[in-house]
């Protein structure tokens, strides 16, 4: 099987001198096409840092990264292009733009990728319908529940047909019913779009949905 994301020896340090924190320490990781991977571990063990490296938001201090088979050169490449062409993000706190409706929030992702407005609107309509928000197209984030906001986030993350979606604690701000619904949605989206998904989570209860669990401790991947 082809690796969608492959990191070798990935290392990221923060701070300097005595205060240096090695947030991610020589991590080797492969995520295969179509997989649903969950990354678990204690708070502060480096999960967010790892997916930021894999999602080209952070550049590693050492190590190599391939996305979709292509090596990434963080110095000479415009990482923003990789981010909007190949990667989708879902954040714990949703981070929808408050001044835009659900539909427009999904369209922004495509606007960034220079998609024409009418094509973007068609796709945003389709995605929001898929995530069950047919009745909420023109609602602002302030008028949506947490679960609904996270659905809009997933629709936004999928807008540019990414190779992989990274979700950082997507259920942490949802109640258990909302988070079950979201997991069901994620399974449905995988069936529909064959998207590769990596989810960072604390919720032991979500484990059963994963194809594979990656455990982290002190910046390293450990075998459970």
């Amino acid at each position, binding site marked *: 099987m082809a690796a969608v994301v492959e990191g070798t020896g990935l290392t990221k340090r923060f701070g300097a001198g005595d205060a240096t924190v090695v947030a991610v320490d020589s991590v080797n990781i492969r995520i295969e096409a179509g997989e649903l991977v969950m990354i678990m571990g204690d708070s502060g063990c480096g999960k967010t840092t790892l997916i930021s490296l894999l999602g080209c*938001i*952070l550049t590693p201090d050492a190590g190599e990264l391939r996305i979709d088979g292509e090596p990434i050169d963080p110095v000479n490449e415009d990482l923003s292009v*990789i*981010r909007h062409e190949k990667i989708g993000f879902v954040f714990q*706190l949703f981070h929808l733009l*408050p001044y835009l409706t659900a539909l427009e929030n999904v369209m922004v992702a495509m606007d*960034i990728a220079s998609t024409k*407005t009418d094509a973007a609107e068609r796709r945003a309509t389709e995605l929001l319908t898929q995530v069950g928000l047919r009745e909420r197209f023109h609602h602002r984030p302030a008028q949506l529940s947490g679960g609904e906001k996270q659905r809009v986030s997933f629709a*936004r993350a999928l807008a540019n047909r990414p190779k992989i979606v990274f979700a*950082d604690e997507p259920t942490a701000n949802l109640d258990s019913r909302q988070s079950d619904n979201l997991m069901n949605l994620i399974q449905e989206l995988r069936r529909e779009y064959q998207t590769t998904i990596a989810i960072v989570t604390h919720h032991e209860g979500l484990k059963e949905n994963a194809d594979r669990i990656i455990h982290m401790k002190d910046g390293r991947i450990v075998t459970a």
Partner: protein
Amino acid sequence: MKTLFLKDMRYRQARVVLTTLGITMLISLILLLGGIMNGMRIQARQYVASTGADIWISAEGSGGAFIGFSMVVEEYMAFLNSWQGLVPDSASPLVFAQARPTVHGKSTKAIVVGYKLGQLGGPKQVIANEGRMFTPSNFEDYRPEDPVPYEVVVDEKMSLEIGEQITLGNEKVKVVGKAKSRMFVLDTPLIFMDVRIAQKLLLGNTPHVNMMIAKTNKNEQPVRIAADLDALETIEARTLKQTLGDIIAYYVDEPMKAVQFLRVMLWLVAGNLVGMITYVTMLEKTQEIGVLKAIGGSDNYVMGLLLKQVVLISVVGVVLGLILSYLFAAAAPIFVAINFVESIIVAGISFVVCCGSGYLAARKAIAVDPMIAFRGEI
């Protein structure tokens, strides 16, 4: 989505409107101050230019006809009537003095112009159907004890009617006619009268005048003639051009230096205002900017969004400022003449200043780390 930046602005409506109004008011202030100075310049020129005189003669050491204190004895000026290069007999005595006439019981500002009717220095006739010229006194064989008719012709803009009396010094004079308005700097109206009455009322009834003015022959260079006359021991002579320059420097540019300085300050304030508000807005938007970058927005994309807002606010603010300044100018209690070309230049500079400071603030804002999207509220 071409209207993305507009949606953002609508969401922050109150702030956008306030910023725009702030720019509008600053721009119109800058333009009004310019208009006031321009109005002063126009008024500083219009009387002097209207006299038709090419040469202005004042006492030695006065620094120019309208600048320092100047008194010349008119009799000694008889030689001017046959001076080579001057139109024969064109030399005219002139009293030009600030005065505080009492009009309708109120002390007001005005300038008394005493001249010889028919000579240079004042109107040859009144406005049609607005009275008549004052009766000239006997000039040539005048003796101080001779009676003179206390008659004046006033600027049409003074709210005076024919037949009314005003008080000048201790004397009452009668308004007999109205002259076309030639207000001096800061809307100071002119009161025209016979030179002998001016001497009686303002100069202690002595045969002095403040200056002599004359015309040069058509084919002569005023500069050369002024230089020849200036070489004489007792007088200074200047051309019309020099005199206009003196007046503008003395009555407008010098006293208005502080205002010029203020205008530059206002520009800085306008730039600062836009920069500050953009910056504060950007701080508030840090999270949003971080998210836009995290989901793949390039620096240019985010910059585009922010700059469109800055440019729109600046354009609207500047254009409204332009319009408002013309409205204010029309309604102002003093003469304000906004120069169109200058207003366009001011608008241009203001636009650049506003956009520039907005750009600086935006550049700082887009430097935010997209990692911020993974963190909570900041």
